[in-house]
């Protein structure tokens, strides 16, 4: 039994890390998306948009801390390699996160004449964060190499992620708002979906082309068969999402959450596709999760904690979303 630890432990941790990245991308995705959409709204609407994410954004970002923490603790040999290679985009992303996090507070607490400026900072911070995350993904897919091709691909991914976030942000707002703002949000969702689709298509085409290994993983014989459901479900979800957005436009009061839930599903599917392409590598083409794993003793200690604590975290996160369910309201401290 003990002999098998080294085999399944790294896999479990890769799965946990993957899960927290996915949760992060969905949750911070919608609140970054709200930030990216902010310049398209009127000042009063901006307050409501920000109010809709107020109780959540901090916890959403904590999933990033968990993901990076798991990379750090479970795959110490890989994290240095990845993060030193992504030094610049990672730093810019952090600056973006700082800007938007503080702008959130300062825009309502600083003297009113600066409010518009901080709203602007909120937008810029969200945009930088999304762009950098996309670029990091692109360079990662490209095996952490830098040349004009990989940079072009990174730019493509930066655009896609940004548009994708604005889509999920749009559907979030369509769920959380009413009136004119909701109508606008529905339109943003639609455009976001079109952009995201183009993006997913381009990235799906480019990835197998630049990496023969990934190409083989998807297009060799029996695999093609087992994997066929993923693209098929993705197409179905896209169509359903498109219809749901159209439906919501006609009946804005009925099931306003539908497009948001479908967007989450879409993110999940795209993510599973990526994860499949990379497994078992943690540094693409260079280091597998089994090469990079930390000592089993230490991993076990963390795993025990995770087994008990993660469900609790999910539970009280659900509680928070339940407390602040329904349409967004102006936030008050008392």
């Amino acid at each position: 039994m003990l002999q098998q630890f080294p085999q399944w432990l790294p896999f479990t941790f890769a799965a946990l890390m993957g899960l927290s990245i996915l949760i992060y991308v969905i949750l911070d995705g919608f609140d970054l998306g709200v930030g990216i959409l902010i310049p398209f709204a009127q000042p009063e609407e901006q307050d409501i948009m920000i109010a809709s994410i107020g109780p959540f954004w901090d916890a959403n970002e904590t999933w990033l801390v968990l993901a990076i923490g798991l990379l750090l603790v479970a795959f110490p040999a890989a994290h240095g390699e990845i993060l030193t290679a992504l030094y610049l985009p990672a730093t810019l992303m952090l600056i973006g996160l700082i800007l938007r996090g503080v702008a959130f507070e300062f825009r309502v607490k600083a003297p009113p004449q600066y409010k518009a400026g901080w709203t602007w900072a909120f937008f810029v911070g969200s945009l930088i964060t999304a762009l950098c995350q996309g670029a990091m993904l692109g360079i990662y897919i490209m095996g952490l190499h830098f040349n004009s091709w990989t940079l072009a691909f990174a730019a493509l991914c930066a655009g896609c992620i940004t548009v994708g976030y604005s889509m999920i942000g749009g559907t979030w707002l369509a769920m959380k708002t009413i009136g004119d703002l909701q109508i606008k949000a529905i339109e943003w969702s639609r455009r976001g979906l079109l952009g995201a689709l183009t993006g997913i298509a381009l990235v799906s085409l480019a990835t197998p082309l630049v990496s023969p290994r990934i190409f083989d993983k998807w297009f060799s014989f029996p695999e093609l068969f087992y994997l066929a459901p993923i693209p098929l479900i993705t197409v179905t979800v896209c169509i359903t999402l498109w219809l749901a957005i159209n439906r919501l436009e006609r009946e804005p009061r009925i099931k306003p959450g539908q497009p948001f839930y479908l967007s989450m599903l879409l993110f999940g599917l795209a993510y599973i596709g990526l994860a499949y392409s990379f497994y078992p590598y943690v540094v693409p083409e260079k280091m597998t999760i089994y090469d990079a794993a930390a000592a089993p003793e230490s991993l076990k200690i963390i795993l025990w904690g995770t087994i008990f604590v993660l469900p609790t975290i999910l539970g009280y996160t659900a509680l928070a979303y339940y407390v602040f369910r329904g349409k967004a309201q102006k936030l008050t401290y008392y």
Partner: protein
Amino acid sequence: MLDAFILSRIQFAANISFHILFPTITIALGWILLFFKLRFNATGDERWMENYRFWVKVFALTFALGVVSGITMSFQFGTNWPGFMETVGNVAGPLLAYEVLTAFFLEAVFLGVMLFGFNKVPNWLHTLATFLVAFGTTMSAFWILVLNSWMHTPAGYEVRDGIVYATDWFAIIFNPSMPYRLSHMLLASGLTAAFLIAGVSAFRVLRGDTAHGARLGLKTAISIAAVLIPVQIFMGDMHGLNTLEHQPAKVAAMEGNWDTQSNVPLLLFAIPDEEARENRFEVGIPNLASIILKHKPDGVVPGLNDFVKSDGTVEHPPVAPVFWSFRVMVGTGLLMLLFSWGTGYLIWRRGVDGVPKPVLYGLVGMTFSGWIATLAGWYVTEIGRQPWLVTGVLDTKAAVGDVAPALVLSTLLLYLAVYAVLTVTYILVVFYLAKKAGEGDQLPDRARTPEAITQFVPAE
């Protein structure tokens, strides 16, 4: 020249210095808010609620800054110090993981309920959320200080092929300096928050703010400070004695003592000169360092020259920064003692409105004194650990990442610019909020404010 090593150090120091400013406030402010709330629940006295309402705003602002700067911290290990995790990841990893799992999520999730849930959840749940946030911040201080203390006084591990493996988690968590460092830091946090509240309340009183809340806030804060500061000074002394046992070179640098000898004076002023290996312009109190550290005038205190190898390699930390930071911390601590006891006495004899203006101005000046002492304290501790990253296990140079110096320099400048702007804005906004509170904004009549007209439509 500036190489990636020194730049990474400066960048790490800048990031963590900026980060610690905010947690050091929120750790204690969370408990103080809970106290305000419980007092209000028990007495129904509006003045407690007034304080709660004002300080919860400052708390929200401070928390946001703490979170975003903390996220930066967690990337630093990977971007600049890959050798750290590669070597001691088996110990540091689980500690960091437990911090995220047991502390960060708790505080981040319940923060939303605490800040915005007042009208949405039953009062007990709101009080519970306030408690969980305070508890979460304290837990994160616990875990990170366990790790930091382990880096100073490692225990419960073995080294195989240059990699550290954990052998005894109890020994790792309760490593020799942890109890001292944790108590000293939590007390530092209490003092920082107390002087913040005292300073801002004094500012409100000075501006002619008639709210009773500000007076109660001042009184509460001064009471907290007056109780904590003697405990802190005592703890600091214990902390120093413990360090003498485990990291004598650090204490030698704090005292500016070059030779191992008896009857060492306590230096009040000196300019340590590492080239000449002696002090210039020494002013000291005879025998006092020996008395403090060894409890007798002729006690023998270790000197820096013991930590120079025969080939001339220096194995003690840079002297001047440790020496001076230590004096800044202790000096600030003594000022805190003076102000909290002096003001406490005046309030006791004459009431808050009887406190003379110059004293109030002094308190306004002391608003951020906690920051100064805390930063100085961390500089003593951390610079005093050099040249080691983990004492006796990993030297700092071995951990640095392979990043182009120009790149590190540019990100460093970017961080510094952002931090400078944010720190100044933060201070201005805190005082702006205080000014606004004085202009009658602190008791919004919910029926009147447009903000209160919510547009609630049930979901689905």
